[in-house]
């Protein structure tokens, strides 16, 4: 009894502590007021910060490059921050940045997950820094309730999932079996994109979903899973739908190793290798969110508001949280995307909301 009760007591104590801590952190989300008057910054005093997970994937690296391009166009430099996909590291970096001079600070942030957005938003609001967030945001958190959180933008995964689903149906001539490789199953991106495929399947009735598996957005897992599914379904497989390009590239390797060249493959994200594959005719389609634009646009919005060139009063409420325009890439238009040119006109203060495709639902 003596031996069993001690660990039990420790466990109980830890759980109580955990519950108490959770309670504390929830009560601290009420935010403070704003600092300096908006729009009073001298352009030269503006500090630009771009933060993504890491530079070891081409998409996020191109995001920061887009930020650099915008910064250069206004004679400034972007501070490039990466947090290796670790939420605690991201919060720590944000705290450090906000501890400095924040009155003319502009942040363009990719929150690691939905739960990471609230502390970033509250921190920026208290410090009076201008903030644009992308991709991840809990549904109940709105930029409308915050002074300095200019906008949140993301992409409609259901739409992109359906776009490539339709492209796949067209590539296999509307008839035949396909397999689907899903992303990390508990992420919104994976769910939305797969919902898009289901919508596409409902319209393209000749296309049959033979199997769905997850390859966790990983090229390597996609390789193994695709090989397994190819042995399982053999020649019935006419197309492969994947929730991102990394998995599409893994699937392409598997097809090559299996000696199959009659299978159409589609993905999402428009990573450079996928664009090359589309150019070579090995892959059918992908969808681009335009990483360099994402890297520049957040900084541009913040810069325009900070310098007063754009007044928050002129920004429509439905533009504060929106789906941005995305582009289906096939062999018809792949050349335009292989060497993405950053159009600085997109970042002019009158144009920063030009790519709003619809309000976030």
């Amino acid at each position, binding site marked *: 009894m003596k031996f069993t009760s001690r660990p039990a007591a420790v466990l109980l104590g830890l759980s109580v502590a955990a519950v108490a801590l959770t309670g504390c952190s929830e009560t601290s989300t009420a935010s403070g007021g704003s600092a300096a008057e908006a729009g009073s910054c001298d352009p030269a005093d503006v500090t630009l910060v771009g933060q993504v997970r890491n530079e*070891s994937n081409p998409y996020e690296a191109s995001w920061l490059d887009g930020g650099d391009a915008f910064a250069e166009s206004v004679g400034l430099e972007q501070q490039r921050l990466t947090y290796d996909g670790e939420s605690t590291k991201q919060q720590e970096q944000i705290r450090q940045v906000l501890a400095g001079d924040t009155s003319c600070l502009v942040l363009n942030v990719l929150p690691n997950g939905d739960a990471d957005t609230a502390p970033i938003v509250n921190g920026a609001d208290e410090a009076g820094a201008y903030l644009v967030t992308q991709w991840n945001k809990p549904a109940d958190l709105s930029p409308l309730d915050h002074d300095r959180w200019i906008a949140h933008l993301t992409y409609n995964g259901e739409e992109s999932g359906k776009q490539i689903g339709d492209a796949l149906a067209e590539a296999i001539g509307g008839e035949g079996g396909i397999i689907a490789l899903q992303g990390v199953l508990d992420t919104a991106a994976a769910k939305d994109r797969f919902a898009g495929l289901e919508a596409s399947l409902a319209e393209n009735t000749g296309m049959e979903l033979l199997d769905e598996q997850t390859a966790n957005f*990983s090229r390597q897992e996609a390789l193994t899973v695709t090989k*397994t599914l190819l*042995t399982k379904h053999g020649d019935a497989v006419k197309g492969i739908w994947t929730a991102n390009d990394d998995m599409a*590239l893994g699937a392409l390797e598997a097809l090559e190793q299996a000696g199959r060249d009659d299978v159409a493959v589609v993905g999402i994200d428009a990573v450079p290798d996928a664009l090359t594959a589309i150019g070579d005719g090995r892959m059918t389609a992908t969808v681009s969110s335009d990483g360099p634009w994402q890297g520049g646009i957040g900084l541009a919005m913040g810069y325009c508001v900070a310098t007063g060139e754009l007044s928050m009063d002129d920004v429509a409420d439905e533009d504060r949280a929106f789906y941005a325009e995305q582009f289906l890439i096939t062999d018809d238009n792949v050349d335009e995307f292989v060497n993405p040119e950053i159009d600085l006109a997109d970042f002019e203060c009158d144009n920063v909301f030009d790519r709003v495709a619809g309000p976030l639902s």
Partner: protein
Amino acid sequence: MTSPAEDVVSARPRPRRGVSLRNAGPGLALAAAVVLFSLLSPQFRTTANLANVLDAAAVLAVVTCGVTFVLLMGSIDLSATGVIAASAIAVALLVENNRNDSDLGYVGILLAVLLGAGLGGLSGLLLVALKVPSFMTTLGVSAIGLGVATLMFNGVQPNISDAALEAWATDRFLGLTLLTWIAAACVLAGWSIQRWTRLGRYAYAIGGAEEVLALSGVRVAPYKVAVFTLAGAFYGLGGVMVTSQLGAGLVQAGSGYTFSSITAAVVGGTLLTGGRGGVLHSAVGVLLIVVLTNGLVQVGVSPYWQGGVQGLIVVVAVAAAALPLRHRNQVVK
């Protein structure tokens, strides 16, 4: 008064029986899994799929070979992810590729393996020189490997066009890819090292009773460093093999391998406490894991269930394998 002596005598044969049961456990589990999946799925028992299982096991087998030696010593190695990343990017940049003009072929492959060995050696040196537990040093070295890989990656994916390295994943001999034969050769080499060399024997001895070994005049430290270096070389080769499979050097090449290799080793009967198990045990563990992954897809288990089902089977398999050992401990007490 005579009873204690009798107890000792009667207790002696029992551990032997326990040992043989424990050794057979993972093998039996593997056979059971193969038979079960074969009955449930006609696609599973095709030769194409069985070849596919062996091909899929190749990289994990090589990585697990490395981690087995470290586990035999009673240390732990969490550096596989980082070391694989570094060597994967390094080899992609050293052989013919789209990023630079280098075309070193097999020299490039050797250099990448040496980079892995170097990082492994660093783990070992930090362990013996600074007396930092292997858990921490290898975790640190993993981060160093990922850092090195990220620096070399530099925002642009290196795609390989070296014909020899690409052939590893595509060319077949007796129905299996060259990668699978390389993995088989590695397991054989690992088993030989474990069986016939002083390094292998001492790895067991360090795991069994390091103090006794040290007291009998053996300088343990160089062997520890050597074991970590050997493990690093296996991870390095694993990184090269991943690059060959994917046709590109990825920083994420090694993600997941740290824990799946340790899991495979433990499932196969290599104990985390050291001194027991070995390369062949671990190879059985690797096959069991890969058969599970493949079989669950073949029989059509929903992807939402697979992770949980696989974890459950692994836990049951380990528990079953450890059952005779528990029995033996009770007798000894």
